């Protein structure tokens, strides 16, 4: 086929990519660079434009404007079959009339590759299903079909492998196992993987870099740890894990930290983790970063007094508390059950504290609930 394009390699560069369907803008002026060889996740709620972005990279959707490059090659208007890109489809889209062997050989045969048998056998071994070569797709379990879909794509050694919610149809346990396996295979074959998902845990387990998408744009991009520890927007703070966001005012600065007043409490927040544009700030603390003690206990770090436990859920590894603060806000606190102390009870008066370095600050004009409603149902 087209040798120029199949030999294209390098970083994947999307610039000013836009896709509208009538009045609806699915992807809005999106620019991003996916480094060659990385495992990249596009994470966002349904309707955020991540699948449309993926389909444009695959060539299944034509951008309204903007360009897509792989290295120096512009692939924006290439047909899907001309691109050095392969896709693992949601629900796999295996060819039901072909054997597993022929499914995997499909791309190789189209490109007129000689040693089809050898390559298919190799990739079947990689996904550990060599004994299924002669079966038909409908004779395989969901997990097996998933692996064959992956094998069918990676056997072509594309410059870029796209995965569209690849684990969505598997049950939780199998999904966990496949997450680890996919990551391993990616390291093994060294291809660039772009993974689209609404499952933040899946993205965090596998990806080197995550781009969180919302309403057709990228909210924030970074390593899983970056995004989790230092979210820049309320959407990211709420969509990746859970966050307590408390209104505050930056009052003064103390070296590398800001001093923030929260309903009369003075707390400290590293400047490097503050994204407030002016004095008004949403102070963010992850639930597991809180320490919780009965009121009156001596505590260090940032301290919030006057809480009352309004709900307790014991979930084995941890206990989750809802604590009502004097300003009527419910805060979430996750406490590891590792100290042999029995959980506190509903109605107990408590003090919360945390290490100042765990504080992050969002712009005070943000909607503190953004992204928290966007958590999709498990499917």
């Amino acid at each position: 086929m087209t040798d120029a394009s199949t030999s294209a390699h390098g970083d994947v560069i999307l610039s000013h990519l836009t896709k509208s369907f009538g009045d609806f803008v699915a992807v809005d002026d999106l620019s991003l660079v996916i480094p060659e060889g990385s495992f990249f996740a596009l994470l966002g709620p349904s309707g955020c434009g991540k699948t449309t972005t993926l389909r444009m990279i695959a060539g299944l959707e034509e951008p309204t404007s903007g360009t897509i490059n792989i290295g120096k090659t512009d692939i924006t208007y290439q047909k899907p079959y001309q691109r050095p890109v392969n896709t693992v489809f949601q629900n796999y889209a295996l060819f039901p009339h072909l054997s597993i062997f022929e499914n995997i050989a499909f791309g190789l045969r189209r490109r007129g590759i000689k040693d089809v048998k050898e390559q298919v056998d190799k990739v079947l071994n990689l996904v550990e299903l060599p004994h299924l070569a002669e079966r038909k797709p409908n004779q395989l379990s969901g997990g097996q079909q998933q692996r064959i879909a992956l094998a069918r794509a990676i056997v072509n050694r594309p410059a870029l492998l796209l995965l569209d919610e690849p684990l969505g149809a598997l049950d939780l346990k199998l999904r966990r196992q496949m997450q680890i396996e996919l990551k391993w295979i990616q390291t093994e074959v060294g291809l660039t993987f772009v993974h689209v998902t609404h499952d933040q845990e899946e993205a965090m387990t596998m990806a080197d870099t995550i781009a969180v998408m919302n309403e057709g744009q990228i909210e924030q991009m970074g390593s899983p740890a970056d995004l989790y520890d230092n979210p820049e927007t309320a959407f990211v703070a709420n969509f990746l894990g859970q966050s307590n966001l408390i209104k505050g005012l930056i009052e003064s600065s103390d070296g590398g930290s800001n001093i923030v007043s929260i309903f009369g409490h003075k707390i400290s927040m590293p400047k490097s983790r503050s994204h407030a544009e002016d004095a008004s700030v949403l102070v963010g603390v992850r639930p597991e970063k809180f320490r919780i003690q009965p009121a009156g206990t001596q505590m260090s770090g940032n301290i919030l007094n006057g809480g009352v436990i309004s709900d307790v859920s014991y979930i084995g590894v941890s206990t989750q508390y809802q604590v009502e603060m004097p300003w009527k806000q419910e805060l979430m606190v996750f406490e590891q059950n590792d100290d042999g102390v029995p959980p506190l009870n509903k109605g107990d008066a408590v003090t919360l504290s945390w290490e100042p370095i765990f504080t992050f600050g969002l712009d005070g004009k943000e909607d503190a609930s953004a992204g928290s409603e966007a958590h999709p149902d498990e499917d």
Partner: protein
Amino acid sequence: MALVTARLNRKRLWPYILLAPGLIWLMAFFVTPIYQLLTTSTQTPGVNIGDYIQTYRFANFIDAIVGARAQFLRSFEYAFIATVLGLLISYPLAYAIAFKSGRWKNTLLVLVVAPFFTSFLLRTVAWQQILGEQGLVIKVLRGVHLLGATGHLTATPFAVVAGLTYNFLPFMTLPLYASLERIDPRTMEASGDLYANAFTTFRKVTLPLSMPGVVAGTLLTFIPAAGDYINAELLGNPSTKMIGNVIDARYLRIVDYPGAAALSFILMATILVMVMLYIRKAGTEELL
């Protein structure tokens, strides 16, 4: 224990109870007539016209074939052409309805079935008008000189095949649509993703996956078309007679019951054998 056995027995009986109405129907209206057909086919004339006595004359079959060889061949030829034409017309139509019609899907499906709202006979008569001297078709064809000034379309093989093609089109379109509609469009996207262009995708994915519809549609067209006599009667001439016309004439005009029965039986057996060979080939994807 006895109770369990009784319940098991009742469970085992259920399928038969459910099958009973259909089986009785088939016995009364298919197996019995076929048996009668077979017995009639070996009878020879008695004293009066219309009287036949059983003499087990199997030579009736040979006589029948020899006498109607041309019409037999013509029937299969016309039916074959009508089936191929039907497939060529219906496949794009069914494809468009299944994948490209959007909100017009149901409307288009109703339109496909719409001819059934009038009788088969009336529709065929209508074709006499369509292809007739005053019709638009003949004027256009004469206008572009595809047809001479004295050329005509009615009472030609063309008219018979056109009628057959038209009349069985819904039987071709609906099974094709049903099997195309069931194809996951993502398998076609996957094919494109795996370096197949549009034509290869059609050849390697869409067409093989729609084979059940192709087989069903072609059978539902070919079988009734091969036995049809209305189209040849209304749109043809004496040299376009099909086997259906021969059987019709032997039964109702010549009153040669054994001859008609033998022909019917041969027609049925031939179609059965052809269908079996066809399905076996289609099943192994050799038809592609």
